[in-house]
C-alpha cells in the first residue's frame, strides 16, 4: 500500500527568519489517524502551514510526497484540489460573501481542477443542508457571510462542514479543540469520525489529550524543536498528559 503522505528530512523556516522545522520525517498511510502533540512553540502550526503552502514559509531542504506527487511544487489551491484540507485554528472572516456561495465556489473550483463535473446549485444546497443538519448548522448560518460574527464554536463547525463537503484525503486539524466547549467538541469529532474510511487520513495537531478522547488516533507523535522525537500508540497521549513534555524537550535539545 502506497503511503498517502511522506515527509522526508524536511527543513523549513519563516522566510528570512527563524528555522522552525528541523529534520522532520513522517509517513501517513491511507485510513490512518495520526496525532501530533507537543508544547507551545514547537512548530506544530508551522508544519500545517508548510504542508498546505502558506506564503511566508520557506522549505530549505527535504521533500514531501502526497499521493505520490511532489507536494512542495504545487500552489495552495492545487494542493487543496489534490485532496489536502487544513482545518484552521483561527478561521478567517470574509465579509460580504455568503457561506453558501463560498462553499459552492470552493467545491466547484476543486472539481474543475480535477476535471470532474461541477455540482449544480440544487445538488450543492441539498448536500450542504444535509451536512449542516449533522453539525447543528442552521440555514441562517449558511446565508451569513463566511465566519463573520460567528462564535468560536460556530467557526469550528463551519470548518468541519467545509471539510465534510470537500471530502479530502488528508485533513490536517490544527488545534481543532481550541476555544471549544464540550458540546461543540463532540460535534466536530463526530464529523471527523463519520468521515473516517480506509482511504481517508487525518493529522490531528493538538497539545491537549482531551480531543483524542473523541478522535482516537492510531499513532501519536511527540513534536519538539521542529521534529518528531518520539512515536507511540494512542496510550502515549495519556502518558503525556501525566508526565508533560519536559523530558522530550530535553531530548530534542
Amino acid at each position, binding site marked *: 500500500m502506497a503511503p498517502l503522505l511522506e515527509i522526508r528530512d524536511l527543513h523549513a523556516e519563516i522566510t528570512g527568519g527563524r528555522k522552525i522545522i528541523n529534520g522532520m520525517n513522517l509517513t501517513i498511510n491511507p485510513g490512518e489517524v495520526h496525532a501530533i502533540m507537543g508544547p507551545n512553540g514547537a512548530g506544530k502550526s508551522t508544519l500545517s502551514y508548510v504542508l498546505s503552502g502558506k*506564503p511566508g514559509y520557506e522549505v530549505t531542504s527535504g521533500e514531501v510526497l502526497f499521493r505520490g506527487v511532489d507536494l512542495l511544487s504545487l500552489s495552495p489551491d492545487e494542493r487543496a484540489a489534490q485532496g489536502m484540507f487544513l482545518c484552521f485554528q483561527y478561521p478567517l472572516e*470574509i465579509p460580504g460573501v455568503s457561506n453558501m*456561495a463560498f462553499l459552492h465556489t470552493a467545491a466547484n473550483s476543486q472539481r474543475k481542477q480535477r476535471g470532474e463535473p461541477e455540482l449544480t446549485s440544487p445538488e450543492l444546497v441539498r448536500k450542504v443542508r444535509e451536512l449542516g443538519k449533522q453539525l447543528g448548522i442552521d440555514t441562517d448560518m449558511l446565508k451569513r457571510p463566511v465566519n463573520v460574527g460567528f462564535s468560536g464554536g460556530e467557526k469550528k463547525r463551519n470548518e468541519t462542514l467545509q471539510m465534510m463537503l470537500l471530502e479530502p484525503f488528508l485533513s490536517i486539524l490544527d488545534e481543532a479543540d481550541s476555544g471549544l466547549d464540550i458540546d461543540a467538541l463532540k460535534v466536530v469529532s463526530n464529523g471527523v469520525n463519520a468521515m473516517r474510511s480506509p482511504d481517508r487520513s487525518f493529522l490531528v495537531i493538538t497539545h491537549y489529550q482531551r480531543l483524542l478522547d473523541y478522535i482516537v488516533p492510531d499513532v501519536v507523535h511527540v513534536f519538539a524543536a521542529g521534529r518528531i522525537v518520539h512515536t507511540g500508540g494512542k496510550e502515549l497521549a495519556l502518558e503525556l498528559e501525566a508526565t508533560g513534555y519536559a523530558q522530550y524537550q530535553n531530548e530534542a535539545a
Partner: protein
Amino acid sequence: MAAVQDTVEQVRSIDVDQYKYGFETNIESEKAPKGLSEEVIRFISARKDEPEWMLEWRLDAYRRWLNMAEPTWARVDFPQIDFQDLYYYAAPKKFKAPKSLDEVDPEILKTYEKLGIPLREQEVLAGVEIPEGERPKIAVDAVFDSVSVATTFKEELKAAGVIFMPISEALREHPDLVRQYLGTVVPTTDNYYATLNSAVFSDGSFVYIPPGVRCPMELSTYFRINEKNTGQFERTLIIADKGAYVSYLEGCTAPMRDENQLHAAVVELVVLDDAEIKYSTVQNWYPGDAEGRGGIYNFVTKRGDCRGRNSKISWTQVETGSAITWKYPSCVLRGEGSSGEFYSIAISNGRQQVDSGTKMIHLGKNTTSRIISKGISAGRSNNTYRGLVSAHRKATGARNFTNCDSLLIGETCGAHTVPYIEAKNPSAQFEHEATTSKISEDMLFYCMQRGLSQEDAVALVVNGFVRDVLQQLPMEFAVEAQKLISISLEGSVG
C-alpha cells in the same frame, strides 16, 4: 450564490491580455474643423438644425468659458490639455437621422456585437422580438460618437407618454420642454468642464416622464467614443414629473488609442413632487496602457435636483475605467422630505487616478441622504473619495449617513478620503463612518486552501467588499459590473 461563480467563469472566459474593447470601426466621419471658436459652435448648432436660442445659449457658455480656469483642487495629475488641438464635432457620415433600425449602418451594429454589449441590448438593436414578460424590457438610445444612431422601443414608450430621444431631436420636437429645464441644474457657469460642455455638447439623451407615470421599462444608453481625437461632450437631461418614476442605465466602453481623450459630459436630473429617478452607471472607458498612456480623461458633471416634495434621486456607479476620473454625482435636496442616495464602487489599477464622490446639499426640511462608497486601489493607482454633505440654515431635520470604505491591494497604490461636512442648522444629524483596509494575505490563503486560484480569491474577496453597492444595481447590470470588477483587478496580486 451563482453570482460569484459567474464572475469566476466570466473572468476565465475573457481574454484580458489586452483591452477587450480596443478596436475602431471604420466609418467615414464628418468633422468640424479642429479647435474651438465661435465658428465651430455655429457649425455644430447648424449641423443639428438647432433653434436660434440654443445657439445663443452655446455662445454665451463659450464666452464665459474663455474667462474660466481649469480646476486644480482634485488629486489628479495630467499634462495640460490643448483645447485647440481637439475636434469638437464628428458625425458618422453615411446616414441622415435614421427612421428605423433598418437604416442603421451594419458596421455600427457589428460594433455593438464586438463590444459584447449584452445580448438583450444586441437583440434590441438588431430588432429581435422579445416575447412578452420573458425578461425586463430595456430601451436603448445608442450614442455612436456624437450622433444618436438608433433609438428603440420608441413606440411603446410613446404610448406611456414617455419621451426618450436624442437631445438634438428633442430640441426640434420638444423645444419648450428642453428650454424649460436645460441648464437649470448644472448652469452654464457651473464649472470649467460643464461650461465647455454647454458650448459644444454634441448629443445625449433626453427623457421626460409625465406626471404619475412609472416608466414601463429601464432606459439604457451606451456611449462610445470612436472618432480619433474627438472630445465627447454628451448632455443628458432627465425629468421625472410629479409622481413619476424612471430607472436609467448608462454604460460605456471606448476603443484603444494613443492620444488622451477628453470626455466632459453633463447629466442633469430634475425630480418633481413624489417622483423618483434611479440612475445607474457602469463606466469602463479605456484606462491607458501599463504606463498610463492613452487613457480617457473623464471629467463629468452629474447633478440631480430634488425640486419637489418627497422626491428622490438615487445614483449608483461602478467606475472601473478611465485614466483620470473626476466625477461627483450630486443631489440638491430642495423639496421638503426629499432624499438622495449615492452608491459607488470605484476601482483603480495600473496608473489610474480616481477623484470621485458626491455632494449632498440639504436645502429643504426633513431631507435625508445616504452615501455608500467603496474604493478599491491596486497597482500604482490613486483613489480619492471626495464628498460634501451640507445642511443649509433652513434644512431643519436634515439627516445623512455616510459610509466610506477603502480597500488596498498591494504596496504601491493609494487610497484617500476627503469628506467635507457643513451643518448650518443645529438639528442636522450627520453620521460618517470610514475604514481603510488592506486585502489580507491570510484571507487569500484561506480561500486558496479551499481550492480557489489566487485570482478567484481576489475576485471573491473584492466582490464581498462591494456587495452592499452591487445590490443597488438592477439585476442584469450587476452581473456585468461584477465581470468588470474582476477584469479590472486581474494581475493586481503578484
